[in-house]
């Protein structure tokens, strides 16, 4: 198709309709915001496409879609849209596929001149486009009007701080821990010092912990219990005792999938541990733990990818106790031999234990004498798990 600039933009506006309908159906503000962002990014890129592409073959939708995905993701992070990554990717996929179908099937079948008019959509299309824009602007306006408050924490707050209402808390230092007991809470660039749990999330979902720092806790840096959390770019260090875990996600199977990404955890007993939960553990650095680096356990269904585990004692990454895990693209360096003679703790880099099933591929294991092993009726496969 040789698009005119107007045709590109009109087609894009009409093509966003399927994604917008999905966003409205899921009743999540981030979805509306993400659709608006997709539209805005696309419209800006259209200016460049128009100059660069006098003709766009159908297959170009694939590389352009990948490019736009990268830009949208970056913009989403930059703006701070609190979207669960998997859900956001799914919505993007719906948007891309919907736009493709609209541009290649719906519009060419409904409007005879669609191709020869360079993608311009005519009167009905313009009305649809206006409806899309009105819905988006209205949605964003409503989103803005009812958005949770943003509270800037200045200086040091003596905690524990208990949060029972949706809101965004930015900056500051909280002593004695933060307890989150409400959905739709965001902590951004908050430092937490002390407490049993530095940040404790219970019975809540759509909680985002963005660039938080936790030190000097006595049980765990972050605990999520029966919760759905996104933890991004956190730092957990300087535990107050030898039994402190880094991040603990427990009994959250009925909640939306949690995600732990880009965190640095050092010196704790276990770095990241999940129990009966569904968690995507991605791109974290777990350093010098006194026990296992990453534990995926108790019938969890987890993914661990692109993590770096250095100097864990006994085991680097373990999938255990009837869990089903996908462990890929991780680097495990220097898993140390535990002194207790248990063969399953002899510096094993990646392990499946006690009726666990782990799909393991594309990992790098360095200086870990136990290698990759399965114990006690567990199974390690090097290809995709059977569906």
């Amino acid at each position, binding site marked *: 198709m040789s698009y005119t600039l107007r045709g590109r933009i009109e087609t894009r506006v009409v093509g966003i309709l399927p994604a917008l309908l999905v966003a409205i159906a899921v009743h999540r503000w981030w979805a509306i915001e993400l659709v608006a962002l997709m539209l805005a990014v696309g419209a800006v890129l259209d200016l460049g496409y128009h100059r660069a592409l006098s003709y766009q073959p159908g297959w170009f939708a694939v590389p352009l879609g990948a490019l736009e995905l990268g830009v949208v993701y970056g913009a989403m992070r930059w703006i701070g849209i609190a979207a669960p990554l998997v859900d956001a990717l799914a919505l993007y996929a719906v948007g891309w596929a919907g736009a493709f179908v609209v541009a290649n*099937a719906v519009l060419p079948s409904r409007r*005879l001149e669609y191709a*020869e008019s*360079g993608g311009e959509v005519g009167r009905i299309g313009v009305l649809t486009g206006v409806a899309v824009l009105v819905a988006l602007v209205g949605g964003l306006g409503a989103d803005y009007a009812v958005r949770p408050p943003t509270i800037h924490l200045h200086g040091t707050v003596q905690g524990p701080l208990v949060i029972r209402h949706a809101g965004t808390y930015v900056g500051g230092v909280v002593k004695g821990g933060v307890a989150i007991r409400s959905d739709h809470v965001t902590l951004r660039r908050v430092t937490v010092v002390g407490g049993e749990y530095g940040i404790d999330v219970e019975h809540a979902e759509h909680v985002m912990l963005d660039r938080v720092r936790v030190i000097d806790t006595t049980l765990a840096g972050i605990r999520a219990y029966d919760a759905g959390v996104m933890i991004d770019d956190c730092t957990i260090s300087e535990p107050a005792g030898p039994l402190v875990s880094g991040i603990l996600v427990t009994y959250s199977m009925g909640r939306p999938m949690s995600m732990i990404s880009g965190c640095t955890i050092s010196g704790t007993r276990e770095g990241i541990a999940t129990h009966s939960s569904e968690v995507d553990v991605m791109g974290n650095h777990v350093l010098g733990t006194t026990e296992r680096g990453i534990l995926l356990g108790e019938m969890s269904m987890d993914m661990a990818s692109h993590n770096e585990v250095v100097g864990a004692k006994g085991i680097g990454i373990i999938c255990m106790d009837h869990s089903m895990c996908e462990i890929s693209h991780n680097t495990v360096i220097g898993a140390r031999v535990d002194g207790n003679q248990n063969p399953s703790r002899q510096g094993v880099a990646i392990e499946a234990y006690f009726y666990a099933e782990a799909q393991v591929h594309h990992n790098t294991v360095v200086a870990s004498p136990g290698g990759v092993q399965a114990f006690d009726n567990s199974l390690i496969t090097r290809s995709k798990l059977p569906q």
Partner: protein
Amino acid sequence: MSRRCAVVGSGLAALAAYTTLRRGGVAAEEIVVLGTHEDPTAVWRERAAAIRQQKMRSESDGHLAAASFPGLSVREAWRTGSPAPLVASLANRYHPSVAEFLAHAEKVRVRSGWKTSFRQRRVERVRAVDGGFELDGEEAVPHVLIATGHPGLARPAEYPDAVHAYEPHEYGARIVVVGAGMAAATEWRNALAAGAEVTSIRRRPPLRRPLNAPRPFFSKRGLAGFHRTAPVRRAGVLRDLSAPSYPPGREWDEPVESAMEAGRFRVASPAQRSGRDTQVICATGFLRGFRNDPLLADLVDAHDLETHEEWIVLAPDSTVPALTDERRTLALAGVAGQWAFPAADTIAGAKYAARAFLRRTCRTR
């Protein structure tokens, strides 16, 4: 019910126009199609058969239904259960088979009600009258689309005994193929496959391009600039685009290269033609220009229409400006419509004229 629209001609462009009108809500009883062949693919089919054409040069949307979707790739994928045509179409590598194209054209013809509107008659004279056009002096019709097709086969005078590529023929042991376009390239392959020695006679090296015209010329993006150009320059563009060409690709190159290595294919200028050749095939396409079409020539002379070189000057919507107003429309489709749409002799071109014609027809409903 009185006739509101007339389509003069009964070829592919006429069927494209007819299906477009029908899709636009014009009843079959409001349209009359005046032509020499009830089967709109008949002439084209004979020519394709003559050059043993197997594949279309056009792509998935090169079909005669009014809307471009679903195209022939979608239909083939649906019929065969294979996604391969769809994938090929996304990469602009899908070219439907001639059989696929013709089968679909027949379905379109039957579904559209063509038979209801068709009258077997050669129109020899179109005259503008108040509120419409008389066709051979009969009752006036307000909106007329002339789609008479190519005015005839081009036969170079220096080859009086030659057979034209678009006429039925077999292959001798030694063949001269005159020309350098799609038909010539097809004839090289056919003759080589039949075991002949081939000499290609051409005035210039053939152009290689996927379609008849650059892709932007098929949409408003390229057409807007084309329509703005001055007549002299526009004629120059059309001359360039009418230079013989055929698509790039190994399927065209490989047989010729192999034969060249084996000494069975050579290129010669017109002056170098060898005397021992047994058969000359003129793959020289069609006569060009409105003067070669008696109906158009008469129309231009009778109404003193504006022309430029071999083209009738048209408005961007393929209508004849001097004979089109709020109450009546005279439009040209097919090769005669090149002044408005450079690739007018393609299916896309036929549809371009048809859609513009439909817009005018609907406006005066």
